[in-house]
């Protein structure tokens, strides 16, 4: 496409011919680059799609609601892993976002007198460093430090706290709704044998891994809020917290949301660390103290020892489903970001 350019005659140089070749080459290279990105995604989808054809033929869409994984009868349902993936990621996000947001508010909004800027920069560096730790290291830490501690201290503590709280509020809940009371009595999230290698441990490790991502990006979003927005609130007599809550956080909300979604994306696909601490149970978890699997940990543990072409194919389908979940999360997030775009587009993502 060639548009009339009023400066064309002014800018004409003797090397016109060479310039056109340069342009052509440039355009070719960037087009290949752009095409390659799309091509890789399509190729991955294609390979996962064809590789899982046997599985799809055998189980159809029902595979996502089938809770049974039984090698002896060749029944492979992916519900436990989908459950495990969504549950651990959701808990991780719930644990990580407040902490990450707290750290980024601390670093961007606290009065300068309270925190010298050199210390601030150092703290920000530490947060960024956490993101660079390889996931296997988090996994080892989880296995050797977190899991034993969960088993001996945290898990029993949580269970007794839940029971005590339950006994405390049970009469009230029962009075309001006997049904809810009965349901809560039989649906404690803290039942089962405490082994330490469980859904809760995996969620906590994931949370720790997600914190630096969410913290670093939400920090950028908060730092991008124009200072006059904050000053407007302070000048009206707002306290530091009020200015942050009413002026700064709303302005940065889409950036913070984007940060959380990126964190979620990381949690959904995390493999090594989860595999080491989740216990790799193949039944659907009914308690946070049950062992479980995620789609990613299933692939890591079962792929190399799959017993036949059908299981092999099912594991490829697990990869397909994981890819679709992460794509879906990103598409939904993007749609939400478009709807609630921050003013001036700042901190978009």
């Amino acid at each position, binding site marked *: 496409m060639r548009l009339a350019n009023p400066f064309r005659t002014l800018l004409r140089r003797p090397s016109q011919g060479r310039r056109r070749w340069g342009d052509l080459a440039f355009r070719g290279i960037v087009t290949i680059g752009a095409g390659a990105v799309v091509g890789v995604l399509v190729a991955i989808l294609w390979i996962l799609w064809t590789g899982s054809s046997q599985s799809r033929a055998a189980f159809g869409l029902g595979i996502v609601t089938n809770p049974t994984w039984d090698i002896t009868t060749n029944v492979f349902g992916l519900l436990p892993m989908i459950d495990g993936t969504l549950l651990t990621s959701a808990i991780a996000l719930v644990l990580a976002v407040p902490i990450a947001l707290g750290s980024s508010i601390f670093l961007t909004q606290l009065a300068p007198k309270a925190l010298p800027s050199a210390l601030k920069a150092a703290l920000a560096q530490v947060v960024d460093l956490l993101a660079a730790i390889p996931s296997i290291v988090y996994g080892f830490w989880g296995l050797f430090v977190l899991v034993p501690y969960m088993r001996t201290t945290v898990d029993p503590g949580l269970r007794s706290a839940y029971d005590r709280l339950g006994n405390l509020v049970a009469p009230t809940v029962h009075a309001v709704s006997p049904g809810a009371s009965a349901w809560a009595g039989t649906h404690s999230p803290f039942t089962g044998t405490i082994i330490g290698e469980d859904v809760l441990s995996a969620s906590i490790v994931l949370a720790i891994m997600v914190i630096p991502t969410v913290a670093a990006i939400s920090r950028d979003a908060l730092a991008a809020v124009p200072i006059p927005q904050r000053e407007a609130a302070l000048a009206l007599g707002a306290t530091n917290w*009020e200015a942050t809550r009413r002026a700064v956080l709303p302005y940065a909300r889409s950036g913070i949301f984007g940060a959380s979604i990126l964190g979620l994306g990381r949690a959904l696909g995390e493999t090594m660390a989860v595999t080491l601490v989740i216990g790799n149970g193949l039944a659907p978890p009914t308690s946070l103290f049950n062992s479980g699997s995620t789609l990613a940990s299933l692939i890591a543990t079962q792929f190399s020892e799959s017993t036949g072409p059908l299981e092999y194919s099912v594991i490829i389908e697990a990869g397909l489903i994981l890819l679709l979940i992460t794509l879906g999360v990103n598409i939904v997030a993007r749609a939400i970001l478009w709807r609630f775009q921050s003013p001036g587009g700042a901190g978009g993502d």
Partner: protein
Amino acid sequence: MDATKMAAVGLSASYGRGPAITDINLEFGPNSATAIIGPSGCGKSTFIRCLNRMHETAPRATVTGKVFLDGEDIYEQDPTAVRRRIGMVFQRPNPFATMTIFDNVAAALRFNGRHSREETDKIVYESLQAAALWEEVKDHLFAGATSLSGGQQQRLCIARALAAQPEVLLMDEPCSALDPISTAKVEDLIFTLKRTYTVIIVTHNMQQAARVADRTAFFYLGKLIEVNDTKEIFERPKEKLTEGYVSGRFG
């Protein structure tokens, strides 16, 4: 000047390096407008940001000296309480970008204790009236504040400052980002506001100072060179520097 609403005594401030203003002594009478003029970088913005303790929110900022409001040093008081009594309008319009027009004005009340719905509605209405914006926004009070033009946004910021019911109104070059028509509207407004408030306005524009201010102070290189009735400053300045500046020889 028969009474003093506000007074700076021996006020110096810096941003960590050299001083931005040095030993300023300046009084402000009630129900009058004082203009602060001077070339860029003379410390006039720093000075008024010291008057509501906003200066200290900047990194490495320091302030020494006293600022009296009704005879009491604001640096001995809670800064949030001080800022409720001393409103501020900034150089560039800065309405809360995520709030509606209505909420921008109501936000001032939110930081100042609880108010009933009726009370809030009434104060928002009065503030928008006082800022000469009501007629233009009454049909879309719940539209986003950033949908307004720059001049309207600045009057919204004035309305917001008024809603907090301050005693003193600081204005830091409030028209520098506005077109001439919006500027005229804001100047008319300042003319009305000074009957009720103590208005202190920093301006680059000498005609503006001459039009709206009862008294004018000339700052140069962080020092107060001269302060007097506006007419005197522009017609019979006592200092050579002032004369040079108001006659346009430098600045």
